[in-house]
């Protein structure tokens, strides 16, 4: 295609001798006629714009093979992704309860602080078994975690365990900064709207309900849990004492140091809390809730059959037309079920290939054969 081009080689055809070429850098001070002080610009390659350079040209020999190669690479990748995505098992249940026939309809207009919490149970059937690890997500729709005022409503130094920020949260958290003159820990609208439904899964086997073990550790990013979120430091491990002087967020049923009984999942480093604080990019999103690990290689993690989902419906979404759902999914090297990427690759690959063919035809029939005879001079 392109050849290394050196401007110096052209100079051998140039007929002029001394005066013409160095003074060719004509812009700027002119070369003086005086012998004592000459203002001639330097005759270096940089200043005379003679730097050696590569000059690529889009010829048919480079463009057409490029299109074909890209087409031939993208289509198999797309097929691979699509097949992988199709092999992922996913099951989704919308449990908002807006339809009167839904078991959760009675909880639809529940308030956030009702005690005892409203519960409902949804029975469902899995057609196929779920092999390997199964991940349980909760999903929300029409919930704008990416709103600008919402996104900035947090105090990262407080969440990192800084003691001064604990008692004096940042102004960004307004209006969720203080409650009854006591600082809120954790402050801000994001923490305040934390998702607090409880979901439990049971297998139904001839009228016996076996609970399925749900693991609540390992759902957050490692850097989040170990670097970004830290409990406040002090003497002793008693979190209640460390959070002395603060109050719980307005819409929480329990304060932050009572989120879990285990000390390494309590306080700011509670993994459900961390997952919620990582705000979603789009109004319809899903967040990891629990893991279901496979027990041994012989049995699938979730066999095909009947299951029931017990929900403690604490989180009201009906007021803003939101929807809630529970998703069970397996995972592959590219994450969850995502047909978009596979289809996009196949489409783009085929378009590239087709474009390559079209360009080849056009070039063959109408393309100019560039010759020096075309230059009008």
């Amino acid at each position, binding site marked *: 295609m392109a*050849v290394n081009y050196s401007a110096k080689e*052209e100079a051998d*055809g140039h*007929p*002029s001798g001394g005066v013409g070429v160095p*003074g*060719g850098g*004509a812009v*700027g*001070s*002119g070369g003086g006629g005086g012998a004592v002080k000459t203002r001639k610009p330097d005759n270096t390659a940089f200043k005379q*714009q003679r*730097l050696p*350079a*590569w*000059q*690529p040209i*889009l*010829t048919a020999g480079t463009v057409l093979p490029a*299109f074909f190669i*890209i087409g031939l690479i993208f289509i198999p*990748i797309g097929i691979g992704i699509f097949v992988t995505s199709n092999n992922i098992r996913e099951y989704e249940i919308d449990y908002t309860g807006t339809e009167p026939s839904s078991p959760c309809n009675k909880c639809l207009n529940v308030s956030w602080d009702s005690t005892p919490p409203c519960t409902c149970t949804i029975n469902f059937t899995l057609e196929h078994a779920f092999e390997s*690890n199964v991940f349980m*997500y909760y999903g929300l729709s029409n919930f*704008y975690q*990416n709103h*600008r005022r919402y996104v900035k409503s947090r105090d*990262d130094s407080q969440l990192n365990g*800084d003691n001064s920020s604990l008692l004096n949260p*940042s102004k960004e958290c307004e209006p969720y900064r203080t409650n009854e003159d006591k600082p809120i820990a954790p402050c801000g609208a994001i923490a305040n709207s934390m998702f607090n439904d409880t979901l439990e899964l049971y297998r139904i086997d001839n009228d016996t309900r076996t609970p399925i073990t749900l693991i609540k550790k390992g759902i*957050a*990013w490692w*850097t989040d849990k170990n670097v*970004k979120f830290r409990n406040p430091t002090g003497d002793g491990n008693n979190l209640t004492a460390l959070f002395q002087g603060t109050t719980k967020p307005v819409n929480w049923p329990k304060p932050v140091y009572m989120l879990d009984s285990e000390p390494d999942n309590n306080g700011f480093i509670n993994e459900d809390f961390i997952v919620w604080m*990582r*705000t*979603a*990019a*789009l*109004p319809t999103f*899903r967040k990891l809730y629990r893991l279901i690990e496979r027990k041994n290689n012989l049995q699938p993690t979730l066999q095909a059959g009947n299951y029931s989902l017990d929900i403690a419906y604490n989180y009201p979404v009906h007021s803003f037309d939101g929807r809630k759902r529970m998703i069970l999914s397996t*995972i*592959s*090297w*590219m*994450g*969850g079920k*995502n047909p*978009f*990427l596979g289809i996009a690759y196949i489409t*783009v690959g085929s378009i*590239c290939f087709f*474009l390559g063919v079209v360009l080849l035809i056009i070039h063959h029939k109408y*393309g100019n054969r*560039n010759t*020096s005879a*075309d*230059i*009008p*001079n």
Partner: protein
Amino acid sequence: TAVNIGYSCKMLTDDMTEVFVVTGHTVLEVREELRKAREKMMDASRSVGNGFSSKEKLSSSKLTSVLEAIAGEYALVINGHSLAHALEADMEVEFLETACACKAVICCRVTPLQKAQVVELVKKYKKGVTLAIGDGANDVNMIKTAHIGVGISGQEGIQAVLASDYSFSQFKFLQRLLLVHGRWSYLRMCKFLCYFFYKNFAFTMVHFWFGFFCGFSAQTVYDQYFITLYNIVYTSLPVLAMGVFDQDVPEQRSMEYPKLYEPGQLNLLFNKREFFICIAQGIYTSVLMFFIPYGVFADATRDDGAQLADYQSFAVTVATSLVIVVSVQIGLDTGFWTAINHFFIWGSLAAYFAILFTMHSDGLFRMFPNQFRFVGNAQNTLAQPTVWLTIALTTVVCIMPVVAFRFLKLDLKPELSDTVRYTQLVRKKQKTQHRCVRRTGRVGSRRSGYAFSHQEGFGELIMSGKNMRLSSLALSSFASRPSTSWIETLWKKKGSEGSGAGSPSGTADKTLKV
């Protein structure tokens, strides 16, 4: 004297149809002489074209169109006295039209003020850019009046130099100034502008699309620091290098083919149409830049099941694909890759990733938790194959149409500069193949071969036994038939300079080597 000098520097040639001399001392005489000149020119064209009734008084716009279509070459010589009359308000348009119909106009014995007035006249009525070149203090007025003033530093001191936009030491460098540096400058400026609008539209319009999905709350798609550094650090240096070093054809070819100068005169490289194309490309890129990650992230998770569709990962993905796409685009736009271009383009990409990982590192977060909120993001997000597949897809979809369009344009309707570039490339290849075999022949022989082989006009000239070496002005006048105003202005100035300075030594330099 002026006429003799005109002949010796080949502004006037023997095969011009007529040379009009205007030497009237009163207004009426000058008017009469101008009218006679016009009639003679129109008569000649009428005998070639269709018939008109001869004594019509034509309005000025019809006059222009008729005069532009005259056949034959004319020249006008006017002295200072007559010029004073000709430049009066009621006659100046007539004078201008008559003069512009001529191939060459020589004004002799003019005062500095008149020089400036002539330039002023041309500026006012003609749509074009004027250039004035002079070397003495008497030329300062004219240099300042014209759009572009060129001063010659030398015999007559540096007055002209101080007043000018450009200055050099010899008249012959004017050719290089225009054909090489002027052309390159125009090309670089247009490419630079186009790219700048494109990259900023691609960058900013993503927020417009994101607005539909964030409740129109003006939430930025990118990290704050990315927004600050995008225009300064990540994308400024490559386009700067292109704006400084870009060359479409080497300088020797620029001098050989003056017709390459035409796109600058016709404003072809950056006009309303080109601007809208740039903008459209920017908007198209922004659509893909947002909606492809949107489609992927709608249901995406990491390969360990944890969350991937969070705001910060989305920001990193879109930002990375944006930087890569605009870098590939500047790579496509740069036609002349010097070492500096390479360094700036790859260096900017490397700097982006270096800064990204630094700002998302633990160390900076520990020092300023509220400033560097994106801790851990780059490591986590850019380790996901899904993210890189998204970035690759976005890049390909944004760049492929551009490549296809440019290839089609090069293939079906190449500009002169493309053809010259291509032949340059072919010649380079042949040269490297035949290097050992070829003996260097006579130095000038190749050039004269090119200059003569395609124009029949030169055959007569050679046969007539005149000077074998033609001035480049005559050459360029043959090459670009529709009369270009800069040539006439140049000739006018050269003529006035030639008569004003009165030194015949300058003429030796004017027979430029081809």
